[in-house]
């Protein structure tokens, strides 16, 4: 049974079909990259998987359960975690507090309103462990707003990992990164690969072909090809539509 299976997903905006009968299967531990030119509907697809917008038709199964009508926060608690193309950390919180917030979401209700979070080891310990994993532990006390762009992207990933998810939806984790930062993020993703199912939307083709187990190509909302990296590299329609002839 696959971790996530998407069947005949459709999303229309007026006359524009942003997602056109997309089928997608992600196995546990698989890193599945989604590529395609700008406006191909990659982010729209991720956003529907995360539950922030509803598809017009089709179904999404996660761990065998139909989650098509569940809200974003319900899906998150089931183990589906997303990151954003535009860095979405809490700028006035420190790096540690950001990750603690992600940990807290999975520890039942948050109506406890008296004891300070900073003294709760049930929050600080897992948060520190996750920061360690993301290579940010030395920056734990820095406000997220004061982190470098690349570090903010790492923090964003740490927040995704903190909830111990089953499936990560990563929307361009390397957007706006320098080459060195990209390499660091690739290394980080390689180190966690295999432990989670990962859907990766990314424009950095070097990273995609290094990381992905399978690749799906979206053009105008349609899945035009799906398969292992070598297969995608040779696919004539893909070369014409996306990779360009010089490759």
């Amino acid at each position: 049974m696959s971790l996530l299976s998407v069947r005949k997903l459709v999303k229309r905006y007026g006359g524009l079909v942003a997602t056109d009968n997309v089928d997608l299967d992600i196995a546990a531990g698989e890193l599945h990259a989604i590529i395609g030119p700008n406006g191909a509907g990659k982010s729209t697809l991720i956003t529907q998987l995360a539950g922030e917008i509803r598809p017009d038709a089709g179904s999404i199964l996660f761990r065998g359960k139909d989650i098509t009508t569940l809200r974003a926060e319900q899906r998150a608690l089931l183990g589906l975690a997303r990151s954003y193309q535009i860095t979405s950390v809490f700028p006035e919180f420190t790096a540690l507090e950001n990750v603690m917030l992600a940990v807290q979401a999975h520890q039942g209700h948050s109506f406890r309103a008296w004891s300070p979070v900073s003294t709760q080891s049930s929050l600080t310990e897992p948060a520190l462990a996750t920061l360690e994993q993301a290579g940010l532990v030395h920056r734990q006390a820095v406000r997220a707003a004061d982190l470098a762009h690349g570090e903010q992207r790492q923090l964003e990933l740490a927040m995704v990992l903190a909830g111990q998810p089953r499936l990560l939806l990563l929307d361009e984790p390397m957007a706006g990164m320098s080459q060195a930062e990209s390499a660091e993020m690739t290394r980080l993703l390689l180190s966690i690969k295999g432990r989670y199912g990962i859907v990766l939307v990314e424009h950095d083709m070097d990273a995609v072909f290094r990381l992905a187990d399978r690749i799906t190509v979206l053009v105008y909302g349609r899945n035009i090809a799906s398969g292992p990296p070598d297969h995608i590299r040779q696919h004539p329609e893909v070369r014409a539509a996306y990779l360009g002839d010089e490759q």
Partner: protein
Amino acid sequence: MPLSLDTFRTLSTATRAGLVLLALLALLPLFMRDDPFLLALFARILIFAFASLSLNLILGYGGMVSFGHALYLGLGVYGAAILSFHGVDSGWLQLLTVLAACALVGLITGSIALRTSGISFIMITLAFAQMFYFLFVSLSQYGGDDGLRLKAGSSFGAARLTDGYTLYATAFLLLCAGLYGCHRVIHSRFGTVIRAARSNERRMRALGYPTFRYRLAAYVLSACLCGIAGMLYANLTQFASPSYMSWTTSGELIVMVMLGGLGSLFGPLFGALAMLLTEEALKALTQHWMVIFGPLIVIVVLASRQGICGFCDALDRRRRQHGATTLTGETKA
């Protein structure tokens, strides 16, 4: 909260100023034995500080711009006045009624208003407050537009809140409790969720937080606290009038919060103090005090977007930077 002189030095300027101010306010009644007017003025300041504190909880920390918070102040005022009109002057009973009324109205209006955000939220909270304003205007049994005199002060055992000193002491202790409670709440799990939802609600939901219920809980808590302030206010003015819940009162509460500093603990106290004292001083000066008062508020808010607490924090930052440069200067030398 153990407080030695050393820990006091490590606190931020705003916190230190706030604590000193509280100490002065505690001693104040000793110096104005023969001046009931000043005592009443400062009681009013304490009551409005508490009301703005309740608003700051959702506006400053939660980013919910309620333009109808006078509604809950009014519910508190009328809760006390109507019960005493019917001969119920037990303060505990009045308090219970006020809390129940504010919680109920807060729950209903909040669960509608919180489905929206931004300008729609402001307009809906304003609309609900105006609805209740006109409701109380139409209640001719309770004085309608003319208002209703408080028959007897709320009594807690032998103490009656209409006594100047008792009221002042109650308002002061309530404010201290409110400040401490607010300090605990904003640093707790609940408070962290509220503050984070202000900055990025979408992200919070992606993390797995059903933000609506937390925001609603904060809104209802804030409504109840504001109701308590209203009950004290009824005992101060010994009068209940629909004008207490008019939109201008809501506006004044917002100005106090902004003036003191959005989302800062002592901000509401600074704001209420600065606003009401300036208002009194200008009133003594000229009949057209609003002409001076309006621009004054604009200047303060323009000069520091974080109000009075923002000034204090800027001071702290400059001192820290200064300290850092002298330190590096010494090592170089």
